[in-house]
C-alpha cells in the first residue's frame, strides 16, 4: 500500500518534470559537453585520457548536483504556494508518506538527468579514445547514492527556508562540505578536549558528499574498483543520512499549517 503511494507521488513529480522540459536543460548541458570535447579534439589533445576523464567527472558532478538541488528545493514550497498540496493532504496519506513520495520523485528525476549526462559524456569521451573500465560503472552507482543524499538535504532545507535560500545552502554544502570539514579538522586540533566534541558533532552533521565521488579514482587508468564493504558502508551512510533528513523535514512539516 505504502509503495503504491510513493509510486503515485513520484510518478507525478517525474511526469511534471519531463513535461515542464526541465530535462531539456540537461540535454543542453550535455550538448555543451560534446561541443567542448569537440573543441579539445580540434586543438589536438587526443590521448589526454586522464585530463578528459577528470574533466568529465567534474562536469557530471557539477551538473547533476545542480539538477538534484533545483528539483528537490522547489517541490514542497511550490506545492504550498500553488495550493496543489490540499487535494494531496485530503487523501488518507500521512505527511511523512507525502515527503517520502516527493523525495523519491526528485531522486528519479535527478537519476534520469544524471544518466542522460553520463551517456552524453560517454559519447564525448569516445572522441578521446578513452578505455571504459569497471570502476566507471561503480563511479556511476556510488554517485547516484550521493545524489540521493543531496536531494534529501535540499528537500529538508526547503521545509525550513525559501527555495532560493535552500538552493544556496544545498549548493554550498554540495561543493563546500569538504572544505568546511578540512577547516573543522584544523580548528579541532587547535582547541582543548572539552570543546572538541562540538567540532565532531558539526562534522558528523555535515553531508559527506565527497565520499560518493569516485571521479578522481575513475579518471586514473587501471585503478581497481573499491571493495564491496566500502560500497555497503556508503549505502548505509546514504540510508541513514537520508532517513535523518526526511525526519528533520517531517518534524517541521508534520504540523505545519498549510
Amino acid at each position: 500500500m505504502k509503495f503504491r503511494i510513493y509510486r503515485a507521488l513520484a510518478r507525478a513529480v517525474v511526469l511534471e518534470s519531463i513535461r515542464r522540459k526541465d530535462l531539456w536543460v540537461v540535454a543542453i548541458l550535455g550538448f555543451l559537453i560534446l561541443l567542448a570535447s569537440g573543441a579539445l579534439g580540434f586543438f589536438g589533445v587526443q590521448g589526454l585520457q586522464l585530463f578528459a576523464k577528470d574533466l568529465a567527472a567534474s562536469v557530471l558532478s557539477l551538473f547533476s548536483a545542480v539538477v538534484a538541488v533545483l528539483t528537490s528545493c522547489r517541490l514542497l514550497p511550490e506545492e504550498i504556494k500553488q495550493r496543489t498540496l490540499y487535494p494531496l493532504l485530503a487523501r488518507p496519506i500521512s505527511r511523512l508518506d507525502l515527503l517520502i513520495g516527493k523525495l523519491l520523485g526528485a531522486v528519479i528525476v535527478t537519476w534520469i538527468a544524471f544518466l542522460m549526462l553520463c551517456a552524453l559524456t560517454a559519447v564525448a569521451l569516445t572522441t578521446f579514445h578513452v578505455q571504459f573500465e569497471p570502476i566507471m560503472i561503480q563511479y556511476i552507482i556510488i554517485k547516484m547514492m550521493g545524489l540521493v543524499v543531496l536531494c534529501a538535504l535540499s528537500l529538508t532545507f526547503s521545509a525550513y527556508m525559501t527555495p532560493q535560500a535552500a538552493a544556496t545552502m544545498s549548493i554550498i554544502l554540495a561543493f563546500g562540505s569538504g572544505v568546511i570539514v578540512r577547516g573543522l579538522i584544523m580548528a579541532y586540533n587547535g582547541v582543548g578536549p572539552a570543546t572538541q566534541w562540538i567540532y565532531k558533532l558539526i562534522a558528523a552533521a555535515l553531508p559527506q558528499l565527497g565520499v560518493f565521488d569516485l571521479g578522481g579514482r575513475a579518471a586514473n587508468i587501471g585503478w581497481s574498483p573499491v571493495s564491496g564493504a566500502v560500497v555497503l558502508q556508503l549505502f548505509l551512510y546514504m540510508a541513514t543520512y537520508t532517513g535523518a533528513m526526511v525526519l528533520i523535514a517531517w518534524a517541521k512539516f508534520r504540523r505545519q499549517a498549510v
Partner: protein
Amino acid sequence: MPMINTGMDAAIQVTDLRVRYRTKKGSWQEAVKGLSFQVARGEVVGFLGPNGAGKSSTLKALMGFVQPSGGEAKVFGLEAGSLEAKSRMGYLPEVALYYPYLTPLETLRLYGELEGLKGKALQTEAETLLETVGLKAAMKKQNRSLSKGMLQRVGIAQSLLGNPELLVLDEVTSGLDPVGRKELRTILKDRQSKGATLFFSSHELSEVDMLCDRILLIHEGKLVEEREMHDLKDELRKYVLTYAGQNPDALLGQGWTVAQGQTFSKRFTTKAQLMAALEKVQAAGGTLVDVVAEEGSLEDYFIETVRRAA
C-alpha cells in the same frame, strides 16, 4: 435542528473550535473563536459568512490542514485530519489548482491511487467522474490549458473519488457558469440521495437556497446564526393581500396602500397576520382580489444578520 445525541451519530462535530495563525509580525491572530456546531449524517449544510469570517479555516481544521489551537473537531466520531477520517471524506479546496502538466485523467488517477483505488476500477471511476462533470472531451488535455471553470470541475471530480460519505466543499461554485452550477447541483443532489453528507461554504446564496437543509452563519470566527432552511424561508416569505372594497383605514387599520381605484393592498410578514387580515376583509364585505407570496431575499437576511453581528 436535527436531533443528534452524540458525536458518534454526527458526520461533523465541532466543539469550541479555535484556530489561530501567526502573522508576519510574529503575533497570533485568531481566525476561529470557539466555534461549535454539528452536522448530521445525510444533511446538506451551507456554511456562510463574509470574507475573513473563518469559513476556510474551519474547513481546513476539519481536513487536518491546520491544527486547532483549542477545542476539537471530529468527523464520524474520529479525530479530524486522521487517516481514518480522511478516507471517508472528499474535499474541494477554495482555489482549484492542480498539477499544470498533468491531464485531468492523470490527476484523478494520482488522487485515486492515494485514496487506495487501483487498476481498471480506478480508470473507470476517473473516466466516469470526468464525464459526469462535463470534462470528457478535455480529460487528456494538460491542466494548464484548462479554463478556471474547467479546473473547478476537475476539483469537483477529484472530491468525489472513492464515493466519500462526507463532502467538504470550499466555495463550491467558484468559477462555474450557470450551466456548470446547475450540473453541479444535480451531482450534489444525487450524492445526497445516496446518503452522502454535504458541508459547503459558498458566497452564492442562490445555491445555498436550492441545496441546503440548514445554514450556519459565522462572522469573525463565531457562529451568529444556525437556521433550518425551511424555517428561514418561511420567516423571510412575505404575503401581499389585495382586495376591492371600501377604504380600509377605519375598518382594517393602517398600512394599506391604494393599488388601483377602490383596490387596496398590504404586505404581511407572517401567515398568521395574513389570515387575520383576510378574516377582517371578508367581515367588512371586501372582495378578495389576490394573495401573493413573495419569497424573501436570503441576501438581505445575510447582510442584515452580519450587520447585526458586527
